[in-house]
């Protein structure tokens, strides 16, 4: 349905919740970096929440429609235009064969845009998911990012595609449900498993929950690297049997997705394609309901601000998210 004319920085096929159940074999879950934008896009075109879409990081890409269809653009505003006319975000739009869809680049807020196609992107399901694991080179579209000449089609026999295109065209997300974008992303997080008092000082954990940390230019789908923590962060003088630095521990499975993993004094939020185990502490974990915000953080510009919450808060936030997807007033038409 869409032919890639210019692949831009990084276009990937991703779904949500990704490839679950294989971390024990060293396979990350992959999945959309901003699962909220992808899922809202899916609902706008009448898809299931779990259908695959296109994740566009940075921008600079261009597509040509090879067929009629319906799509919805969500996520970061990249000044996308359909045949030269600005394409609205958070709204389903019909496209005709030959239509040109061109993206500029990300703007003041947000780093990833999502294109949901009615029916869902049709790539082989591999181990239960259509998501691309970029660093494993598997899943998605031939295990890689899209390049000029690639043609992405929608699933023809999906339950969504059976209903025609007219019923969802023009469907708009109620503005009150459009996610709030920022340059300082508040990420609610639960402490542990390696926090105070055993591994990190009280003052160190206070630092995590009170100091917005700049996102490094080295932020990608495996990890969002952040600004260094101070030396008083550490409760131990070394890593004992794990190694010489207090960030070392004997290798263990990492809590994913959302672990705040600290290597040396450098924290990284482990996400989509991140490592499944290793020998560094995980001092806290971003809650599921806030994982989407990490994917919208602009490398070398935005900051992450962690807020301490409880497991109960995390469960409540996840329930609220699920309720939002079911809300009667989710769409305006």
């Amino acid at each position, binding site marked *: 349905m869409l032919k890639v004319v210019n692949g831009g*920085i990084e276009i990937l096929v991703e779904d949500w919740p990704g490839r679950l159940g294989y971390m024990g074999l060293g396979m990350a879950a992959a999945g959309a970096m901003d699962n909220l934008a992808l899922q809202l896009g899916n609902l706008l075109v009448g898809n299931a929440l779990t259908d695959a879409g296109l994740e566009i990081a*940075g921008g600079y890409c261009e597509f040509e429609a090879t067929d009629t269809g319906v799509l919805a653009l969500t996520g970061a505003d990249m000044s996308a235009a359909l045949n030269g006319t600005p394409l609205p975000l958070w709204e389903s739009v019909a496209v005709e064969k030959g239509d040109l869809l061109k993206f500029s680049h990300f703007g003041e807020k947000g780093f990833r845009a999502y294109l949901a196609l009615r029916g869902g992107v049709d790539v082989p399901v591999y181990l239960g998911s259509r998501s691309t694991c970029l660093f494993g080179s598997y899943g998605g579209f031939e295990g890689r990012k899209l390049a000029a000449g690639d043609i992405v089609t929608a699933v023809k026999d999906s339950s969504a595609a059976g209903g025609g295109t007219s019923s969802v065209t023009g469907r708009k997300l109620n503005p009150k449900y459009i996610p709030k974008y920022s340059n300082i992303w508040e990420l609610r997080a639960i402490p542990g498993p390696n926090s105070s008092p055993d591994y990190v000082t009280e003052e160190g954990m206070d630092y995590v929950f009170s100091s917005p940390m700049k996102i490094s230019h080295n932020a990608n789908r495996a990890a969002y690297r952040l600004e260094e923590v101070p030396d008083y962060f550490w409760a131990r003088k070394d890593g004992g049997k794990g190694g010489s630095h207090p960030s070392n521990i004997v290798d263990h499975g990492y809590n994913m997705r959302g672990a705040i993993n600290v290597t040396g004094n450098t924290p990284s939020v482990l996400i989509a394609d991140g490592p499944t185990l290793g020998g560094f502490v995980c001092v806290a974990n971003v809650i599921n309901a806030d994982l989407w915000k990490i994917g919208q953080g602009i490398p*070398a*510009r935005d900051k992450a601000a962690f807020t301490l919450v409880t497991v109960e808060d995390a469960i409540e936030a996840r329930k609220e998210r699920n309720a939002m997807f079911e809300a009667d007033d989710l769409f305006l038409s």
Partner: protein
Amino acid sequence: MAYTLKAHMPGLVARVVVEPGQNVEKDQELAVINCMKTEMRCLSGEAGRVDKILVAEWDEVDIGSDMIILEN
């Protein structure tokens, strides 16, 4: 006339691969930016002669930052 190569992504300058006075073609690589742990090529939008190099290795750039000026 002058053409200014601007950073197309935020990140660190990995290297500048041209020198002042050098003639370059349109679409020729002038510099490389490190972002998302990937080296991203900065291609010239126009042909010309390198007039000024405004960035050096390890400099942090934001999207739209001026990097290299060509005379053409």
